[in-house]
């Protein structure tokens, strides 16, 4: 390995990360801009955050988004975990090919198609569009992401642990809750967080399946962006980024702690 290669490597990483992060940093910086013009710096100010909290429409939308996110992520995590178990443990049942197709296809399906098809379903069965339909739509497309995340953990899971528990007489359901679940829990938690952020983020599917009174935050931001770029939207975006970033950091610290604890336990087990 000669030095020119590693210098090339470092340069590409630095440039790549600058490309990934610079737009977000600029967006955050200009949310503290005194001037109404987004791109001309007029001094530091937090007035856009103040006006944000007086914008009733935006606050309502935030509340709708938070509720849709929590409910859909929770249901999607349960369904996605079941789907992941099905994919890894039941290799032979009728319609398995169709099932795995239905789990993987939504990952890459253009959102306009998913949104339109779900809307037409809701109209066909006579469901009024609103909070409930957005939640159902979000459960459907996020559960597939949960399934993939949990599945990758299940694949690397040491099944002899389960077999040992069952040999010792634990019934399958009990084995699942006492052995399997604690092991795959980190994946389930990150699956939940992924589902929550995907729901928080979604504009297209929500626009199709939502109705009056259930405007989500991305829909609100989108309709304001179309009218023009304002520092107030920058402020709203900054808060969203902060919420997600704090969540991700807490989760990764918790994950790291658990990992260290696990290593300590293993060492103790080997010694004792």
């Amino acid at each position: 390995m000669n030095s020119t290669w590693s210098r090339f490597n470092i340069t590409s990483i630095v440039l790549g990360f600058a490309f990934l992060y610079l737009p977000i940093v600029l967006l955050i910086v200009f949310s503290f801009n005194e001037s109404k013009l987004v791109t001309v710096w007029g001094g530091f100010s937090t007035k856009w955050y103040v006006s944000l909290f007086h914008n009733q429409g935006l606050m309502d939308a935030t509340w709708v988004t938070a509720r849709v996110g929590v409910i859909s992520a929770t249901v999607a995590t349960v369904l996605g975990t079941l789907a992941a178990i099905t994919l890894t443990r039941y290799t032979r049942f009728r319609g398995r090919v169709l099932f795995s197709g239905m789990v993987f296809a939504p990952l890459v399906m253009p959102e306009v198609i998913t949104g339109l098809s779900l809307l037409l379903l809701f109209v066909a069965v006579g469901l009024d569009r609103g909070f409930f339909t957005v939640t159902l739509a979000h459960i459907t497309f996020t559960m597939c992401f949960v399934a993939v995340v949990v599945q990758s953990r299940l694949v690397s899971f040491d099944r002899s642990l389960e077999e040992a528990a069952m040999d010792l007489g634990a019934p399958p359901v009990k084995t699942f809750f006492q052995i399997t679940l604690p092991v795959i829990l980190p994946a389930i938690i990150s699956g939940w967080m992924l589902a929550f952020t995907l729901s928080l983020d979604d504009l297209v599917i929500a626009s199709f399946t939502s109705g009056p009174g259930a405007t989500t935050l991305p829909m609100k931001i989108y309709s304001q962006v179309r009218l023009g770029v304002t520092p107030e939207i920058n402020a709203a975006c900054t808060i969203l980024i902060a919420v997600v970033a704090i969540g991700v950091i807490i989760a990764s610290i918790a994950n790291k702690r658990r990992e260290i604890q696990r290593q300590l336990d293993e060492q103790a087990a080997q010694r004792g």
Partner: protein
Amino acid sequence: MTDIAATAAPLTETTTLPARLAKGFVSRLVIIIPYLWLLFFFLIPFIIVFKISLSQTAISMPPYTPVLDFSDGISGFFAGFRELNFDNYTWLTQDALYFNAYVTSLIIAAISTILTLIVGYPIAYGMARAPATIRPTLLMLVILPFWTSFLIRVYAWIGILKPEGLLNQLLMSLHIISQPLVILNTYTAIFIGIVYSYLPFMVLPLYSSLEKMDYSLVEAAEDLGCPPIGAFWKITFPLSLPGVVAGCLLVFIPAVGEFVIPDLLGGSQTLMIGKTLWNEFFSNRDWPVSSAVAVILLLVLTIPIMFFQQAQAKAQEQGR
């Protein structure tokens, strides 16, 4: 562990009939619940889209005439076949707008996929060659933007690319250009938006295949006198091919139907199929035509989606 020891019961217990029935019931439930959910909320909606694409626009709510309705019984259902009309599809082939939108979308997605690969490969390669201690941090840094809203990340570029935006300000203050560049509302802006938004999708699969690679192969080639670039094309690139394929599919397929990026960065002049479908639905309120647009878009994407599914299944097999 004490819990399990405490519940340790004679082995025969699990083989009693009620226990076996319970086990069968539970495992069946594990399969059935997500299966039915996806069947009802994923598969059936597509059938409805197809059905409505064959109906006609009507001024009512919902704005289309019913076709293949079971309300007339089975005979009515079959009689309905004669009333089916493919007008929407004929309309789509006659109007050059739709054909152009499909072709443009495919070309834009293909070019952006290649651009994303060119931008993403050095990053993934640099990460894979980085010291093992900082790799998890680098990985986290690639994933982090993925967690922030797509809409926000696209929105951030408007302020940069605008005629009086930050990029033009920078270039003009450096006296590189004298007139502001027009980037926003052009295809260039769409390329930038897609490369930026989908970069993590490309970097992650590339990284995972590059990280597994045995670099002593490259060293061996270089020791035998192969120049670094030759070694890259003969060894590194072929070995990373699974990652290249996975990354390209993950970028290409959603990019074809992309709506937010062409709408916010491309302006009204650019033509992409996701935007056409959206306008057909929300502005023209023509549900049957937008359904027909969706059906054709789905058909166009069937082959790459099947490739993607196959790649997923293969990865699953290897993981086991």
